[in-house]
């Protein structure tokens, strides 16, 4: 087996994953509430080769016996960076932005609970009713602090967020209503699992998560008529892309060296 070719090709495969994650970050640079993903490398397990029998033949060594040949680099699990993105004023009534990095909106799709940072909500008509359901862009219901989906009257005129965290919905010809957006403080962001559509999932039910101390279902500060931009730094991503691509190229070079060397072996008897 050609160790060198193996090392270089498996490293290329791992580097490709890093390029993929950079591409995903760049693609989501304008996605509200997107959190960038990072790929970390470590050295792979090693092949251990013993060259000489007996330590008596190994005089003058500076390292312990044996020869360890590395198997290239290995990507460890992608880490999501939950740092706060900057806030962008939109002026839209249904836009909310969270102000601390570990705060999340609680949303649900049927029985499934999710968390999201994207506070760009929609008001969707509920069939055979004069009320509107507050939903996310992908159609999940936005939950209130009581854990139930939020609904508002169809003909609302204005929405405002008070210092107490209550959202007041005013109507032209009926008394105002209030609701509180359901937010959660994620104590263990490392457990958040990407569920697609800008949503995250935690293992277990919401009650179990709260009992395990993974999440606290409390009111978190937010801004109204603002959205949180993604925390992707384009300059950093591009620099990382360039460095990764060059490293990818150098692994290709290592493969061609290995190939040329095998060619030399094959042409030894010409």
């Amino acid at each position, binding site marked *: 087996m050609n*160790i*060198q070719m193996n*090392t*270089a090709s498996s*490293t290329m495969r791992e580097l490709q994953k890093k390029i993929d994650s950079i591409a995903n970050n760049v693609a989501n640079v304008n996605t509200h509430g997107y959190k960038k993903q990072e790929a*970390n*490398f*470590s*050295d*792979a*397990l*090693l092949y251990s*080769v013993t*060259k*000489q029998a007996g330590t008596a033949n*190994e005089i*003058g*060594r*500076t*390292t*312990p016996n044996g*020869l*360890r*040949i*590395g*198997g*290239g*680099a*290995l990507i*460890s*699990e992608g*880490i999501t*960076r*939950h*740092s706060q993105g900057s806030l962008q004023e939109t002026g839209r009534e249904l836009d909310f932005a969270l102000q601390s*990095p*570990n705060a999340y909106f609680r949303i649900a799709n049927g029985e499934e609970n999710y968390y999201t940072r994207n506070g760009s909500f929609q008001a969707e008509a509920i069939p055979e009713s004069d009320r509107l359901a507050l939903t996310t862009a992908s159609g999940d219901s936005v939950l209130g602090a009581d854990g139930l989906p939020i609904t508002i009257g169809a003909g609302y005129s204005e929405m405002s967020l008070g210092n107490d965290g209550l959202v007041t919905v005013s109507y032209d010809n009926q008394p105002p209503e209030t609701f509180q957006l359901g937010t959660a403080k994620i*104590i*263990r*962001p*490392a*457990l958040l699992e990407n569920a697609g559509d800008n949503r995250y999932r935690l293992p277990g039910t919401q009650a179990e998560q709260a009992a395990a101390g*993974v999440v606290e279902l409390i009111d978190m500060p937010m801004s109204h008529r603002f959205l949180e931009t993604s925390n992707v730094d384009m300059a950093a991503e591009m620099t990382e892309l360039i*460095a*990764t691509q*060059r*490293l990818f190229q*150098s*692994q290709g*070079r*290592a493969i061609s*060296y*290995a190939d*040329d*060397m095998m060619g*030399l*072996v094959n042409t*030894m*008897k*010409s």
Partner: protein
Amino acid sequence: MFRGLYTATSGMMSQNRYQQVLTNNLANASTPGFKTDDSAVRSFPDQLIKAQNANQPAPIGHLSTGVYLQEAIPSFLQGPIRETGNATDFALLDEKLAADPETGERGHLLFAVETADGDVRYTRNGQFTVDAQGFLATSFGQRVLGDNLQPLQVGDSEFSADDSGAITREDGTVAGNLWIGVTEDAGQLVKQGHNLLAWEGDPDDAPALAADGERYAQQGFIEQSNVDLTRTMTDMMTAYRGFESNQKVIQAYDRSMEKAVNEIGRV
């Protein structure tokens, strides 16, 4: 048999090994805390060649019987430091260590982590994360040890650490101090993959906790790999050409053998 045929073959084999070591260095050029491996080539035992005279054999000299790649020695030179701004990233700064007054050499600093089966391993990769239970851990889940050799529970990733490695949680409680060890003989550390280093020297000389309260660690920074891309590429070219030269030598031997077999023996 010709004396140098197998010597040239051993040259090819060792250049091939050298190339493998270089490829691995290159592969880990972006692995935080990775230490480049320098190769040491060693000659097999020499033979003393003597000329057969009528009654007194006259010595001609020594002849090497080949070479092999004996060891890959990790170079524990400090890698460049890069700012990441992540609270869970730490870089160790060797130059903050006091130099030995006699040799003028500094030791090398290390973090300690605990493997799944409870063994202590060392690492230079300070790119940590917080695991599901709130412990500081490596990206492969090995927990990072504090100066009492117990895992450090930091709560969430909003903790702060000073440059002596003392960690304060977000709520102001103290999580403990990072175990920052020092060793004078980094050559006894054996790479085990996943950025782990095992101590294979005398257990009495194992890395020991560095002087308390010194400013060795830097939060929000990582130590990059100390692989020099330019040098590694150059070395790979050299290794390739060395491999090629040995192949040519073998071909030359082959032609000599051809002459011996087919021409000298012709009647």
